């Protein structure tokens, strides 16, 4: 089966089936509330695809994807607040939360976010550019392994703390109560469904991009850097450049996911982008199988779904279940859910070979 999906026809079939489920079955079966939840999970899955690329294929343990997720989310949220303010009080009006905080004058850096085009451009460019700069600074100095992981995690913590201190960015409470998304009323169930379709469509695109990157010569090179960075350098490649591409791509995916997350969920606050959410992203990818293409998606969806389901039933049990899940996967299935097929095959084979000599 896995052989079939690695062919060109197989890939199309896989995408077709996924599209059928996401665009056909899910909206029919799920209530509006559940569909909204699924849209939120799909945003996590988009982040996970990027982590699968940077960590699974590139060996960079990106423990701080909350930074890029948060950048995309806050950039989008700024635009939505500006649009709402403009709708209420005309051009130049101050968003509601600023009025409550006593800010009468619109800060200069908010002004351009009235433009949807500028906002979307920023969502695509700003986190990617930041990742490129950071990547060059880190990888050229050959910072890797645990040091890189700690660095990126500290960055996520620092970013959340920075935002808590910014009253003009909503502070601890973050930004919420969005009414319009590029002119569409967010209370309308039809528009909520549209947001779900956007999330589903973006996920398919992101998976397709990741698939192309894996199959390309670049993808082979990335695995080579992961397994023997020194060797790659002695072959005449600048290994840092190769890593930066994967890191920046993962940042872009996370940013886009954050931007979709905001209108879907209706709130973004420092609590959704700091260290804990960043670890949650990694957890999903590890459980799904970081080196496979679909594993991170499955893992992210499974973890998010399990968290919601368990928290509904047993509010205090989720934390324990989460820890247990992580231990079980690391101990018994280091390759994640994606490796179950191969693991069972090995399990079935073993008794057979044991019998052979008898």
């Amino acid at each position, binding site marked *: 089966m896995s052989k079939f999906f690695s062919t060109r026809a197989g890939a199309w079939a896989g995408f077709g089936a996924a599209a059928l489920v996401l665009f056909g079955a899910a909206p029919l079966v799920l209530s509006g509330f559940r569909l909204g939840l699924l849209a939120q999970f799909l945003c996590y899955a988009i982040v996970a695809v990027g982590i699968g690329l940077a960590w699974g294929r590139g060996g960079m343990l990106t423990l701080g994807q909350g930074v890029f997720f948060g950048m995309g989310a806050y950039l989008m949220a700024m635009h939505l607040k500006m649009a709402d303010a403009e709708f209420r009080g005309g051009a130049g009006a101050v968003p509601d939360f600023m009025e409550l905080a006593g800010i009468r004058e619109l800060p200069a850096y908010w002004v351009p976010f009235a433009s949807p085009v500028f906002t979307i451009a920023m969502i695509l460019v700003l986190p990617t550019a930041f990742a490129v700069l950071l990547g060059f600074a880190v990888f050229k100095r050959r910072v890797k392994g645990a040091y890189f992981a700690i660095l990126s995690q500290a960055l996520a913590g620092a970013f959340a703390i920075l935002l808590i201190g910014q009253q003009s960015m909503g502070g601890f409470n973050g930004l919420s109560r969005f009414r319009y998304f590029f002119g569409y009323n967010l209370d309308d169930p039809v528009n909520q469904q549209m947001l779900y379709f956007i999330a589903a469509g973006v996920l398919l695109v992101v998976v397709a991009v990741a698939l192309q990157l894996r199959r390309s010569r670049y993808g082979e090179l990335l695995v*080579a850097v992961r397994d023997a960075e020194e*060797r790659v350098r002695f072959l*005449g490649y600048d290994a840092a450049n190769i890593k930066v591409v994967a890191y920046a791509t993962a940042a872009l995916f996370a940013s886009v996911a954050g931007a979709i997350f905001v209108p879907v969920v209706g709130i973004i606050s420092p609590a959704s982008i700091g260290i804990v959410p960043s670890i949650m992203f990694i957890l999903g990818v590890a459980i799904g199988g970081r080196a496979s293409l679909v594993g991170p998606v499955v893992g992210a969806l499974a973890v998010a779904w399990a968290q919601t389901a368990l928290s509904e039933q047993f509010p205090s049990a989720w934390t324990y279940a989460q820890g247990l899940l992580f231990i079980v996967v690391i101990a018994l299935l280091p390759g994640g859910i994606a490796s179950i097929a191969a693991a069972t095959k090995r399990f079935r084979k073993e008794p057979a070979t044991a019998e052979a000599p008898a």
Partner: protein
Amino acid sequence: MSTNALTCTAVSVDFDGFKAVNGVDLTLERGEVHFLIGPNGAGKTTLVDAITGLTKYAGSVVKDGVELRGRKVHHIARRGIGRTFQTAQVFEQLTVAQNLDIAAGAARPALSLLRRRTALPEHVVAVMDQIGLARHAQTPAGILAHGQKQWLEIGMLLVGDADVLLLDEPIAGMGQAERDTTGRLLHDIAQTRAVAVVEHDMDFMRAFASRVTVLHAGAVLATGSVDEVTNDPRVQEVYLGAAHEQETADAATA
């Protein structure tokens, strides 16, 4: 093409006051298999590390008229200097064909890397034949035999158009048949390239060296043909002593 491929002049490596390499002059010529021998700690591998940009050094290394000192590892590699490691470093998760294709591609334009590989370049196929791994094109490098990994690593330098090859103990752990095959391969590729081999194995050196440089305590002790070097009394004293006595004993009993 001049035969003189690489010239090291007064190369010294200083590890916090310890001179691992001390004023080494070394010339590698195309058409030669040049053996670097010497006891443990003589500075052989450190010298290779210095030439390839891994270790900082004083002195000068010139290839085809270009000074290499201070350049980055990947820049030096792109100038045609390839090296292998004591334990073969290949990309274990990738197939033999993928390993060689990556090694052949350092000069590819960045955007072309985003496309899928449709066919192996011709010279990659030719090298795969030369190193005897044509049948294993689709085998993951990680499950190759020890000797095959070493050959693959040499092949990776060949497809990358390296014309100065620095091989660190290429026959370590090989059986006799594999050693002979490797020796012949080295002479084959040295026809148009300069090949330097860091080695401990004296029999292998006698069988395949065109020229030998003996390092001792970071400095060059002697350089010349196999006979010149093995007959040099200083060399016999520091390095070949035990083996030489053993041989005379063997000759006496025979």
